[in-house]
C-alpha cells in the first residue's frame, strides 16, 4: 500500500512480478503465433528488461500456462488453450443470460449507440 501512495501520477508505476506475468500472458494470447522472448518483450510494451521477460516466460511455462517450441537455439512461446471449448461454452452461456444476470456483470466497456461510436472513432483518429 505504501508503494502505491508514493507513486507519482505521472510516472508509470513499477510492476510487481504477478502483474508482469499477467501482462506477458496477455501478450501471448493477443499474438497470432508463437513469440520469441524478444518479440514477447516488444508485444508487452513498456521498458522491460529482456531478462525479466525471459524469466517470466520460463515461470509461466513451468506453471503450464504457456507452451513452447524449440526454434534452433531459441524457444518460441505460445498461449496454451487447454480447456478452450469448455471455457468458451461457459462464457457464451454466461453472456446470453437474461436481463437480471446481465445487470450484475460489470463490464470493462459496454457497446455503444451509433452516435457514440462515431464520436469515439473520431477521437481515436485524432490520437493517431
Amino acid at each position: 500500500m505504501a508503494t502505491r501512495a508514493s507513486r507519482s501520477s505521472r510516472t508509470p508505476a513499477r510492476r510487481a512480478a504477478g502483474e508482469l506475468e499477467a501482462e506477458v500472458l496477455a501478450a501471448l494470447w493477443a499474438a497470432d503465433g508463437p513469440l520469441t522472448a524478444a518479440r514477447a518483450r516488444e508485444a508487452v510494451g513498456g521498458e522491460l528488461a529482456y531478462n525479466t521477460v525471459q524469466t517470466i516466460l520460463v515461470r509461466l511455462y513451468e506453471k503450464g500456462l504457456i507452451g513452447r517450441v524449440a526454434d534452433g537455439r531459441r524457444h518460441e512461446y505460445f498461449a496454451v488453450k487447454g480447456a478452450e471449448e469448455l471455457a468458451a461454452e461457459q462464457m457464451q452461456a454466461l453472456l446470453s443470460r437474461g436481463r437480471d444476470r446481465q445487470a450484475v456483470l460489470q463490464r470493462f466497456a459496454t457497446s455503444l449507440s451509433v452516435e457514440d461510436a462515431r464520436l469515439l472513432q473520431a477521437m481515436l483518429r485524432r490520437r493517431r
Partner: protein
Amino acid sequence: MTISVYVPAALSLLLAAISRIVVGRIAPTRAVVFVVAAMLCAAASTWGLVLLSATLLGDTSMVAEEASERGVQLQDPVPQLIGVTAVVLLVSGVFRVVRVLRARRATTQELRAVCSSCGTGELAVVALAAPHAFAVPGRPGRILVTQGLLSVLDGDERRVVLAHERAHLQSRHHWLRAATEVSAALNPVLIPVREAVAFLVERSADEHAAAVTGSRRLVAAAIAKVALAGGADGGVRAWSAALPFVGCGVSARVAALHADPPRPEPLVPSSVLALGVATAIAAVQATMAFYQLVYWLWPS
C-alpha cells in the same frame, strides 16, 4: 402515524435526483457516500413500510378515538388502504431482493467456473472473439478476459485493462454495487443511485488505471477501442439501452478522461450523507410514533 414515516420515501426521491445531477461531476472515489446514503434511505423506507404494515394488525382508528377521549391526541391513524399498499410494496421489495441476490450469486459462480477452466494465476483468458473483461471477486480475485479483447489492444492498452480490473478487485467495488443493488431492489426510487454508483466505480477504476499507466489519454483510447470492437454485439446493446441513464456510459467515461482530473468537492458528499442521516432520524421518529400507537393498542 406521523408524517415522518413518509419522509424516507421523499428523501429517497431527493437523493435520486441529486445523484442524477452530480454523477458526471463528482470525484469517482466519492461513490461510497452514495452507497451509504442509499443504504440508509432503503433501510429507513423499508422500516417505514414495516411500521405501516403493522398498523393493519390492530384497528388504529378505534385506538385514536379512545385516546382522544382520554385527552391524548394521537397523530393521525393510518387508513387501511395505505397499510395494504405498504404490505404489497414490502413483499414485492423482498421478492426483488431475493432475485437480485440470486442473480449475483449465480453470475459470480459462473464467472468463477469459467476462470477455473482457464488455468491458474491472476489472468484467465477465454478463446472468444467478443471483447469482454470482468473482475471476478474471490480469494484470490481473478481477471477474466476474452482473446478478442486482448487482440484489439496493444501492450500499453492491455495494461490499462488489467489495472482497471485490478482496481475493482482491490477496492472491492462488487460490495458497493451489491449494496446499491439491494437498496434499489427494496426501494425502486433509488434506481438512479444504483446507476450512479455503477458509473462511479467504473470511473474510479479508470482513474486508477490512469495513475498506474501514467496516461489518462491511453485509458480513454483503450476504453474506446474495446467499446467499438464490441459494437456488433446486439444483445449487450439491448440491455444497456434499457438503462435509465443516457450520459453514464462509455462515452461519458472517455469524455471525463479527456477533461481535467476530478477534484474532490467537500460539499456534495457531506450533503448526500446528511440526507442519509435525515432518513435515519425520520425512521426513528416514525418508530416512536408507532410505539405510541402500540401503547394505546395494547395498554398492558
